[in-house]
């Protein structure tokens, strides 16, 4: 289940949504980044060392001295950010020690990917076409975001379609967002190279990047399973199959 330390991956927590829309084995994996944007005062960017979350499985390479590269950049309190202006729509409470008070809300970038069990990733499947035009009026490719708060982004609900993928055997699969939030980008690399989706579904073959709304960040994972819970689902499938 755990991929090797493929770079950025180690800073993500994996969440799963199996059998989406009741379709067997159409499982998705949402990678939630540990870095969070905190608001409710000065514009602090707080990066957590993943303290409150399960540490992703990492197979250490065979080198004696090795690091757990901590999630980068701690630009903490006011002192480092004095030159930056404050958010306009947030109340400020800039105390001398630079600690903002008020309610903390956070936003953590999420990457939507296919889970390994998804039919499209099974051997023998060839991808014929990937279509980001999900309706007459809506193409995910036309998504445009601007600014830090990603204004103008298409808003997604859990079952909003991201794209439709058809395989050469005539099957069609809809890829769903799985979480609520703003669509930041869809992966255009898989349009030009569909094989990427099958070869590296958890990295270069990702489907889309979504940024949950501030207020909803904590609740987005409520509808999803942890790695452990998902593994139990897989075990049940295997035993009921045999």
């Amino acid at each position, binding site marked *: 289940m755990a991929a090797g330390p*493929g770079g950025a991956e180690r800073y993500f927590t994996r969440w799963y949504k199996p059998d989406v829309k009741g379709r067997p084995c159409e499982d998705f994996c949402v990678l939630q980044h540990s870095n969070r944007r905190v608001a409710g005062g000065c514009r602090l960017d707080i990066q957590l060392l993943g303290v409150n979350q399960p540490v992703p499985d990492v197979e250490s*390479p065979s080198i004696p001295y090795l690091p757990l*590269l901590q999630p*980068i950049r701690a630009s*903490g309190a006011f002192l*480092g950010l004095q030159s930056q202006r404050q958010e306009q729509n947030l109340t400020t409470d800039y105390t001398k020690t630079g*600690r903002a008070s008020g309610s903390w809300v956070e936003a953590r*970038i999420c990457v939507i990917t296919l889970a390994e069990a998804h039919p499209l990733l099974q051997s023998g499947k060839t991808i014929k076409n990937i279509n980001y035009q999900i309706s007459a009026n809506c193409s995910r490719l036309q998504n445009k975001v601007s600014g830090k708060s*990603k204004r103008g982004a298409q808003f997604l609900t859990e079952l909003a379609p991201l794209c439709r993928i058809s395989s050469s055997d005539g099957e069609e699969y809809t890829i769903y967002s799985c979480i609520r939030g703003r669509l930041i980008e869809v992966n255009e690399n898989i349009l030009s190279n569909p094989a990427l989706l099958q070869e590296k579904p958890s990295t270069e073959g990702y489907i889309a990047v979504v940024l949950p709304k501030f207020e909803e960040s904590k609740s987005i994972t409520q509808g999803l399973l942890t790695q452990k819970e998902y593994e139990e689902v897989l075990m049940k499938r295997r035993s009921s199959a045999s």
Partner: protein
Amino acid sequence: MAGDLQRAAWLGVKQQMRNLGLPFTKDDIVQVKEAYKWIIHPQLSEELGVPADGKSLFEVSVVFAHPETDEECHFLATACPDCFKPAKNKQSVFTRMAVIKALEKIKEEDFLKHFPCPPSSPKNLCDALEIECNNGAVFVAGRYNKYSRNLPQTPWIIDGERKLESSVEELISEHLMAEFKADSFNFSSSGREDVDVRTLGNGRPFAMELVNPRRIHFTAEEMKRLQQAINDSSDKIQVRDLQLVTREAIGRMKEGEEEKTKTYSALIWTDKAIQREDIAFLDDIKELKLDQKTPLRVLHRRPLAVRCRLIHTMKSEYIDEHHFRLHLKTQAGTYIKEFVHGDFGRTKPNIGSLLNRTADILELDVESVDVDWPPTLAD
């Protein structure tokens, strides 16, 4: 208010110059503020027995109250009500901009009725409400090395709880604040590195603004001793070239952040085995153009964009079948970690794509920040 006086003076002089038939522009008129300084400085000087310096770093501010003058504002408000709309965050509706707008709108005749030139003498004296002394900020610059992989540049505090001990900023400011006896400080540097990245070589230029310092004169010797004190107090950071600089000089440091090159050393891991021959070609690549989308790790707080950056040169050092060290010289603003692991294919090309493998970065060091400021001090 000075604005009213200025306008009245302008209108009065305009009239006189017209009568004399002399050409002139607004720029020919001496600002009321300046005229006031010319008159008052010598008087203060004589009274206090000290020379008057309009640009001194030592500032004494006195707040006066004069109800009569406040009434002038109210005239403006009644004559031109739409210029003065209350808005949040403003203590008074009578902001400089609002007054200027109103003055321009009011007709000359109406204005002169209320504000003749020369103005009438005030009936009452004003009262001094507050006196405050302030020293202008001084700036201390230098370069810092960071030897710890567990030290943030600025304090890391969440919900009032400190997540990591100390910071580069605090380790440097502690001693400076004590010596300069300042109220507070502002730390800035020519770029910054992540918590887990060391800064080697000549170090990274930084500047510390000390606000309202009580002591501002330091000899070169004393600065050297201060530098030594900072260096003796911690092995996590070291500073060099510690010196006093002007506010203007800080601009050079910030320039450096955007324009100057940086060199790095990265320890890289690959999933599939590599031999020496497999990485040798990296040394021959010059001016490699990268397209880097805003990295996922900062996308929550930065706008989505694609930036083009150059890797000027690379030099590889083979370690074993799964590891090598790469030295790079890059354009300012290049995301090195993303160049190594590819950031889900959002930085192209990347080490993984160049070697046709999956690569990860295990360690990163800044070898040099190629900004030639602040001036190097002889040891």
